[in-house]
């Protein structure tokens, strides 16, 4: 039983990380209708830049983080200016393919700037089991994972407040509802997009730091985007609670499946199990758990 709980908790905690990446997607999708395939590349870019600042320029972590944030904001602004602005009013699928191109570009750029070797990233949180849980319940839960989940929770709360209580948040929701109507009442569309992409860049940085500290900062970080996709399908593309719940479901079920079904079929099913789960779910409810009902007209 304690083993089951351990796997479940481990899965839920890694699900929080998936959710964090998925939120980056949701932010951009809500505000601009762009399905940003490059989010994984942005996570990689952010983590690599931060580590590069520390390794190459000898910055401390606390200096490197704000500098990287500034870099991510600049990147967000550049993407808005160069890629998105000329593609306004194009079909969603064109925008999606453009972000695939963007993902390749950012991956190449990151490695060109900082090299392609694996970097170690030390955050001041230790990756050891929490003593209390281990002593009393014999469950091994990493302190690092719990702290990471806490940071994610903080970030999500901050974002939720930003979006529900501030002027920018209100403007953003208006843009998400209808670009043209928002423009007509005087909301500056391009500014809103720039804000959103910058925020998504910062979320990518947080995700990149947490994942990078766990697994090393390496190219594999870009595959996080592929992990976040089933989360989005499950939760719905437009809902932040959906991304969180979807992340938890995917994280937990993936680990449980790997542990309990994996040995029967040769292991390694983590790669596709979330997709199949999400697909089966889609067949029942095509808009995801919390997605908006899709109404289609001719």
């Amino acid at each position, binding site marked *: 039983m304690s083993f089951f709980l351990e796997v479940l908790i481990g899965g839920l905690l890694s699900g929080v990380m998936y959710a964090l990446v998925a939120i980056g997607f949701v932010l951009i999708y809500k505000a601009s209708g762009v*399905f940003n395939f490059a989010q994984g590349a942005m996570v990689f870019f952010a983590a690599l830049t931060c580590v590069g600042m520390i390794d190459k320029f000898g910055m401390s972590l606390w200096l490197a983080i704000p500098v990287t944030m500034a870099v991510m904001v600049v990147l967000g602004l550049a993407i808005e200016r*160069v*890629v998105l602005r*000329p*593609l306004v009013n*194009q079909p*969603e*699928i*064109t925008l*999606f*393919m*453009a972000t*695939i*191109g*963007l*993902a*390749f*570009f*950012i*991956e*190449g*750029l990151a*490695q*060109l700037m900082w*090299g*392609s070797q694996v970097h170690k990233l030390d955050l001041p949180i230790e990756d050891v089991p929490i003593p209390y849980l281990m002593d009393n319940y014999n469950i091994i839960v990493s302190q690092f994972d719990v702290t990471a989940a806490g940071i994610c929770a903080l970030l999500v709360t901050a974002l939720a407040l930003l979006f529900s209580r501030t002027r920018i948040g209100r403007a953003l929701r208006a843009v998400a509802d209808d670009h043209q109507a928002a423009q007509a009442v005087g909301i500056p569309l391009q500014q809103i997009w720039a804000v959103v992409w910058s925020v998504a860049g910062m979320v990518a940085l947080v995700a990149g730091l947490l994942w990078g500290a766990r697994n090393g900062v390496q190219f594999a970080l870009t595959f996080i985007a*592929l992990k976040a*996709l*089933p989360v*989005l*399908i499950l939760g719905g593309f437009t809902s932040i609670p959906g991304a969180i719940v979807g992340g938890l479901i995917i994280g937990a079920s993936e680990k449980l499946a790997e542990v309990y079904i994996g040995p029967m*079929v*040769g*292991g*390694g*099913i983590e*790669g*596709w199990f979330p*997709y*199949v789960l*999400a*697909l089966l779910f*889609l*067949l029942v409810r*095509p808009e995801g758990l919390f997605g908006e009902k899709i109404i*289609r*007209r*001719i």
Partner: protein
Amino acid sequence: MFYREAGQFKTTYESDNQIFPIRQDRYAMLAVLALALLVVPLFASPYMLSAILIPFLIFSLAALGLNILTGYAGQLSLGTAAFMAVGAFASFNFVARVPGMPMLLAFVLGGLSAALVGIAFGLPSLRIRGFYLAAATLATQFFVVWCLTKIPYLTNYSTSGVITAQKIVILGYVFDTPATKYLLVLAIVSLMALLAKNMVRSNVGRSWMAIRDMDMAAEVIGFRPMRTKLLAFAVSSFYCGVAGALYAYAYLGTVEPEAYNLDLSFRILFMIIIGGVGSILGSFLGAAFIVLLPVFLNIVAHGLSLPTSVASNLELMVFGALIIFFLIVEPHGLARLWQIGKEKLRLWPFPH
């Protein structure tokens, strides 16, 4: 001036409906085919044949497959490499397990197996669309490659998972030199391209395009979406399957799951974006572009004596930038540029 169809009268339906209604196109196509069939095998070096022309033709075929699905039927797919893998492994198994299996039949059967898998994974397209579907096709990609690595039966219990492809023997003739392999691939690709061209300008192609342009409206006026979409998945996967088999047999010489990774899927997607979505010619142009670009960049990097890691990263960046560039500036790709060029040539040198 070079491209004037004045004086070419069509007096029968047949002549009006042919693939190349303009005489210049017809002759140009014949000249290209003659060049590819007769001159190239004589004069091209083995490197040219096996490192550039053969992959170019094979990728063209795969791009053709994806273009049928994405360009004509409007179903975005990121699982092209998976269908190629199914084609390659199915062909391998048919040859390995059925005694006296003719090679060409094995390719066809490989393509048909890919078509079956394509239909199975195309089923979600009936309920979901757009990038939900793109994400679903990623499932194909991961699942198929996982199956091929984990199920030993499919790799004929090879210990390393990497298998040498059998020799291509057709009617007792062994295709083992680059030139003969090239001719075989050329023949198959030309034939299938001709088929595809005819398919997309017939009933079938029109129904695909109707579904692509507005699926609900198409449904209302009587196209059956289920049949049309699944047919598109089947035909597209068939093309990709045959391309995958050729990729293993005529290009790599090995059959291994890792050769059919997500990266290959993306590269083929890039081919159709750069070449032209919804164009047969575009599949060929895009494949040529994507095959030649790394070669070109390597020469440039070599000339500037850049290290290889820089060159490979530059390649990623150039690929990405080109995709964005084409989507913004010319969403119909190289094929559209060619068309514009033809229109210009028609009036040249007096543009009024």
